[in-house]
């Protein structure tokens, strides 16, 4: 869902990335059109187009003339690598900060992570 947390075009780009990572959009498959994204998310088509353009610039999507946008081969691996890089700042750092606030020691946190990891 679209919210106010960051620019809408960025949220569109991230959602397409998520779909590529999850396999919902396999490599070499066609992604929905800008107008389809706009209708689905109820956003301006130009904004949806900007989100798609970001991924074209990054080489994640490519354009087939007269047909539409497709997922580039090798995108999934590249996106996974990018997300793993930002995992530390995006997820681990806030976790540590919250743990610190609650007085959970690094050792206790380690244990919690192991337990939760085994349970899931």
């Amino acid at each position, binding site marked *: 869902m679209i919210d106010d*947390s960051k620019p809408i075009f960025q949220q569109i780009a991230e959602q397409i990335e998520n779909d590529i990572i999850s396999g919902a959009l396999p490599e070499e498959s066609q992604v929905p059109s800008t107008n389809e994204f706009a209708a689905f998310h109820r956003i301006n088509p130009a904004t949806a187009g900007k989100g798609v353009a970001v991924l074209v610039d990054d080489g994640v999507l490519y354009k087939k003339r007269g047909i539409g946008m497709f997922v580039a081969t090798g995108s999934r691996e590249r996106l996974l690598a990018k997300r793993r890089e930002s995992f530390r700042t995006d997820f681990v750092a806030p976790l540590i900060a919250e743990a610190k606030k609650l007085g959970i020691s690094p050792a206790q946190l380690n244990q919690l992570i192991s337990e939760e990891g085994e349970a899931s």
Partner: protein
Amino acid sequence: MTDTATPVVEVSGLTKRFGDVVALDDVTLTVRPGAITGLLGRNGAGKTTLMQTITGQDFANSGEIRVFGEHPVENAKVLSRISFIKEGQKYPDEFKAKHVFACAPWFYENWDAEFAAQLIDDFQLPVNRRIRKLSRGQLSAVGVIVGLASRAPLTFFDEPYLGLDAVARQTFYDRLLADYGEHPRTIILSTHLIDEVANMLEHVVVIDRGRIIMDESADSARESATTVVGPRGAIDAFVAGRRVLHREGIGGLASVTVERLDADERREALAAGLELAPVSLQQLIVRTTNSATTDFGAEEPSSIKEGTRS
């Protein structure tokens, strides 16, 4: 999008007075072609006056207006390319809704009768009923259908949906977006329901007491303010020297809306243990257009606190 080179609307130094009241105060504005622009502001801010002046239905006291590069007043070439849907549109007494749609192609060269028929169905509009027997919402639906099916290169919607319920408004937004996607054109949408339309806008113009106070892309407007939340002392230290748009607090906690923060400033706030929250377009506009009626001075919360203690 269509010919992005020439602006569809160019207004400069526009001033309009009604007696002592300055409705438009030196307004300069360029409307981007092919975009959906939100014209937002409080009641009486000058939105309708601005649109009426641009569409040649009212005269300015001074200033220049160019629509499609020409002066709009009594200019058939310009006016035939404009659709202006407003609240309280008058129709001939004997008219039924179907008569309005039958006349529409005489005024709008891009009129799509098939699309109109589909919209009539979507809004369940009784086309054989006299216009004056229609409910407020049905009357609004007539305007919305004309505005959409006319596909005018320049379309104004001025509070088009009085009396339309949430379902009908959603239908309007969905049809507008879909049709705009297929047939890009310049749309100016004036409304108080900012939250409902915020994501549909590419550009935002805010008018306050006759003056343009914001004219930027919706993305950039959204990032132009941030709310910082945290312990009062830490907040006061962080916001010192910044322009504060809004401040509120409870107990030892303060929540302050400040202007754009860059990446370093955001990191600084987070490092100080403060929380950052986004400001929606609606909140931003509320906070930038009500400064005259309420004083959000920094001393306000503490004086209230002292007041309750005594």
